[in-house]
């Protein structure tokens, strides 16, 4: 395990998370991430062998409902908040 988060680590995580960062932000985040991750390492002290993880506090496994068609939102409502739309569709930036 690497000891130190570098600027290029921050750039990699920002790329994974699709967040553009300024050069100044990269430096600030690198410094803060090191301190926060140091604090997170506290959990290393605990022996968790044979302890199962708790993803969820409820003992739910699968929750099913009947496969029935409900009343959908009207198209106008669905498109109401779209920054760009055209002919009843969301308008996306160029993908390829």
């Amino acid at each position, binding site marked *: 395990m690497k000891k130190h988060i570098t600027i290029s680590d921050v750039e990699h*995580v920002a790329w994974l998370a699709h*967040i553009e960062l300024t050069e100044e932000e990269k430096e600030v*985040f690198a410094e803060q991430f090191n301190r926060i991750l140091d604090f997170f390492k506290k959990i290393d002290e*605990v022996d968790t062998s044979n302890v199962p*993880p708790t993803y969820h506090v*409820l003992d*739910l496994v699968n929750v099913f409902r009947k496969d029935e068609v409900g009343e959908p939102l009207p198209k106008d409502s669905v498109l109401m908040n779209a*920054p760009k739309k055209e002919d009843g569709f969301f308008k996306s*930036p160029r993908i390829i």
Partner: protein
Amino acid sequence: MSSRLFELSAADAVEKIKSQEITAEDYINSIIERISRVEGKINAFITLDIKRAVERAREIDKKISRGEVVGRLASIAIAVKDNICTLGIRTTCASRMLENFIPPYDATVIERIKREDAIIIGKTNMDEFAMGSTTETSYFGPTRNPWDLSKVPGGSSGGSAAAIISGEATLALGSDTGGSVRCPASYCSVIGLKPTYGLVSRYGLIAYANSLEQIGPLAKSTIDCALLLSIIGGYDPKDSTSVNTPLNNYFNAFTDDLRGLKIGLPKEFFGEGVEDAVKRHVWSAIYLLEDLGATYEEISLPSLEYALAAYYIIAMSEASSNLARYDGLRYGYRVECNDADWAKIYARNRRIGFGSEVKRRIMLGTYALSAGYYEQYYLKALKIRTIVRRDFELALKKFDALIGPTMPTPPFNIGEKIQDPLTLYMCDILTVPANLTGYPAISIPCGFEGKLPIGLQAISKPFDEGTLLKISFALENNTDFIKRRPAL
């Protein structure tokens, strides 16, 4: 006619309005007049809905005069945290990303309070996407603490707590992911309850960390808190984590007789970092509960030491996944840029749309979930969660409630901690265990240090909100803290 109708409790106001002792319109006008007088100092609201509020009050008055039945919250002004979707009313999450977002549907809790004739007076300020403990990370500027305008009101539901203690609303809804209802309740001297995970539907709550959060009531009396909880609680098929169990009758809980109530005091709740003044006020309340017949015993829950780190790893991991949906395509902030491709525009929307705390949590969560670190951080944190839960289960077999302070310090200055994220995270040390375990918890006013409020936290067994309300009622009935109001 008293011009201070805004001071009435919800239970009293509903009774007076139903019996036509006062009109809904006079009551709502008193609230509106109060807002116009104090909101400039507090900044509790992001959006107000005054015009519709008056129309609704008039409709309710007409219904009553025609002899029609009205709901249990008839015309009560409710302040709703701005991460709960309200049909036709802008819902921003205090973020530039959602600055202009108008939900096309109501959250389940909103449907339920509307069914009882409540009036949504406005949407309250909060930390951006509920990520914070001070309401300072809002895109719309900080909310100020009504008890001392230089202090933070707590967060992330800071606007909701500040609005009701200032008389700008009678009841409020908040959400609590790691203490976001209880912290501002403590800092503003109101009652704030985080229900058992699964008791209240999260449908229409804009997700931050969905395995941890619950919508909860904030109120100025225990009866009002119970009233709102009994209306928003209960099974909802639209939320697959909603639990199908009959709702308890909370109103049976109200008595001064606490004989038989067994309280556990985890020494970790009174440990290093908790200020002496805070401990002193909480102990006074414990002695009072003892005078009323409760017994207490000091215990130790060693796993609490690891709860905060585990909580932040899980919350950030879930946040990184939940907030991936903000692409600026179907809704949300979108840059004007025609020549760039999808990935560039997506990343730029998120740079401009999100504030720095949101970016920090998304990125740290992404890191904790990424290849090579998943087991070390995320999976390990989930195992710690199991250990904390086992500790709580065991302790609450023996005790009816665990008690300690809600916050380790009294409210601090605006700007004091915001530059240092880790210091700020430490504020949540006493509140996060209830979210990790899913157990219900309440913050109850228990004293003032100078003019600054102190809150007591009680945690009980799953679906035993009744015990929390019982403790709250006993403290309310035997002290004057919850009756005090800030000079504004």
